[in-house]
């Protein structure tokens, strides 16, 4: 099966007065049709930036300096803005963290849904309105027929995020990029929204790129996971392997540092130090100063993804002929 989205060696730089910062360093990802891929990492790892670069919404001065992004075999990273705008919405939908800034406060939610569907699907007024109501029903908004004429401020946070999900899916895109869709919500609402996103993606065969820092959300939602650290993808694999049997020492440390809900330990495993800032990424593997399994090669050679146990990991422990690990 050919990939729906294929990202190869994508690099993004931020030129600053003190030199260029490499915010993304040769990131490669692929998503199959209908698949849910999680992208996880700590703040500043570059996970949101990856999403933004894919849909062509990089904030200046960020620029793509290398690599390519292809959707269904067609390159989309060099398209003129007008063509890219047509792809956004029609072929790639987006759900962002804060539903209040995604929705236009001056239009009713129905009008925003209708406008999106008419722009991309060319429906008649009546059909579009009927579909808008149906979408609100699908995302679980009670009294959808009346609420379709309500303004965003009349909805609560959880309800607004449901509307945003409807808006992202209503033009029937093949891919949805969801950037921290549940972070602004309360826990009891989070679960509802995740379940909804997952169900709709399955029903419509939509692929999802889910960006989040919450491993619990990833574990419940995704098929595969990519772990990012300091602008690079350092491990990719099936969700079960990455969560329960990770290969990269960083992923291992990350999983162990999460307090468990079902058992209490005296002391959490901790990773000392913090992720390096972009202007101070160490040579070699970016994780080497914090890594408990560091050896000589890690300090000057930068590893790429390589087969490692059940996943792919960027770690010299798994290099051909390595005796460590």
């Amino acid at each position: 099966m050919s990939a729906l989205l294929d990202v190869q060696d994508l690099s993004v730089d931020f030129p600053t007065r003190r030199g260029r910062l490499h915010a993304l360093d040769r990131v490669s990802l692929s998503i199959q049709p209908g698949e849910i891929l999680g992208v996880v990492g700590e703040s500043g790892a570059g996970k949101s930036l990856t999403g933004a670069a894919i849909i062509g919404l990089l904030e200046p001065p960020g620029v793509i300096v290398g690599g390519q992004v292809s959707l269904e075999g067609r390159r989309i990273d060099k398209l003129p803005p007008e063509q890219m705008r047509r792809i956004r919405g029609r072929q790639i939908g987006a759900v962002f963290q804060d539903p209040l800034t995604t929705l236009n406060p001056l239009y009713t939610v129905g009008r925003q849904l209708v406008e999106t569907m008419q722009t991309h699907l060319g429906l008649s007024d009546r059909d579009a309105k009927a579909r808008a109501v149906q979408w609100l029903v699908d995302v679980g908004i009670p009294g959808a027929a009346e609420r379709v004429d309500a303004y965003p401020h009349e909805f609560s946070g959880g309800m607004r995020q449901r509307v945003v999900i409807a808006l992202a899916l209503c033009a029937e895109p093949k891919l949805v990029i969801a950037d921290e869709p549940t972070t602004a919500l309360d826990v009891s609402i989070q679960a509802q929204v995740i379940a909804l996103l997952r169900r709709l993606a399955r029903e419509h065969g939509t692929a999802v790129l889910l960006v989040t820092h919450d491993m619990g959300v990833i574990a419940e939602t995704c098929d595969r996971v990519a772990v990012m650290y300091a602008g690079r993808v350092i491990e990719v694999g099936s969700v079960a392997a990455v969560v329960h049997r990770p290969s990269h020492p960083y992923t291992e440390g990350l999983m162990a540092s999460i307090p468990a809900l079902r058992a209490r330990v005296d002391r959490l495993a901790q990773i000392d130090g913090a992720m390096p800032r972009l202007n101070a990424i160490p040579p070699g593997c970016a994780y080497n100063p914090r890594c408990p399994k560091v050896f000589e090669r890690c300090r000057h050679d930068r590893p790429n993804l390589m087969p490692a146990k059940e996943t792919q990991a960027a770690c010299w422990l798994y290099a051909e002929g390595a005796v460590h690990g």
Partner: protein
Amino acid sequence: MADVLEAVKVSRSFDVSKPWLQRMLSRSGRRSLRAVDEVSFSIPKGTTLSLVGESGCGKSTVARLAVGLYPPSSGDIRFEGQSLSSARAQPALRRRMNMIFQDPYASLNPRWRVQDIVAEPLRAFGMLRGSAVGDRVGQLLSQVGLSPADGAKYPHEFSGGQRQRISIARALSSEPDFLVCDEPTSALDVSVQAQILNLMRELQTRLGLTYLFISHNLSVIRHMSDRLGVMYLGRIVEHGPAEAIFTEPRHPYTRLLLDAIPDLDAAGGVGRVRAGVGGEVPSPIAPPPGCTFHPRCPLANDRCRVERPDYTQAGPVEVACHAVEEGRG
């Protein structure tokens, strides 16, 4: 064991009325929001009481009440047996309680050097002067895992986790016995969160600290707490030893919360089947009558819609729920 802090039926209301002129024009009355409603708890020395709940449940208001940043509208808070208002009037007692805030980017003055930030309580209480201050600051910084030389830097030179260490050093500088920690790790990444939680537990063991710990994250709460209070719309709905609540949650809201949390165990399809719980937290300005949880509760009946539940003792736990009391749970 002696209780360090005790709250007896503490309530706190806020005036959320419109401005006077608008009220006159629209002929509407004053409105108030009851953020905390007859909350009672006690924290024995050297232990941690945690409060958990969703946004708007009143947990941060309780945190502020517990250190006297807000006076209660009714009820009483006692610090070692003395009413908090009179305890705070005495600097000797006031220095013994302190607070750690959620956002280490907002709680440290960006124009002050770290050594001045950490020394502020020492100076405010006149505990030390001269070169002794510098020595003590160096000692405090090493205690939280920073270097004494970091004192000369400014907060912007530190990462989020390091800043939270600075907040902890500042909170410890007046040698308090009681710390209120309001979401101390929610602004931090998980690997850094583990460092801070470990540090807080080490300090508790070493210095015999008593914590009131506020969080919305149940996994963090489980890691930190001896006792636990679950809050919903200003009330504690379930209260007891943390382990007892985690192993056998009784109140339907506690069960909902525990069930709703996305969990690592779910990876690869070994997850739990969720009870489909819907609904949202109602507005605290106009809470539902009876038990405030009844619109979302799967066990609600007519009694729940009209009569407010009192606490029932269920094993080691106190629960405010008619269903539990009647054995319908």
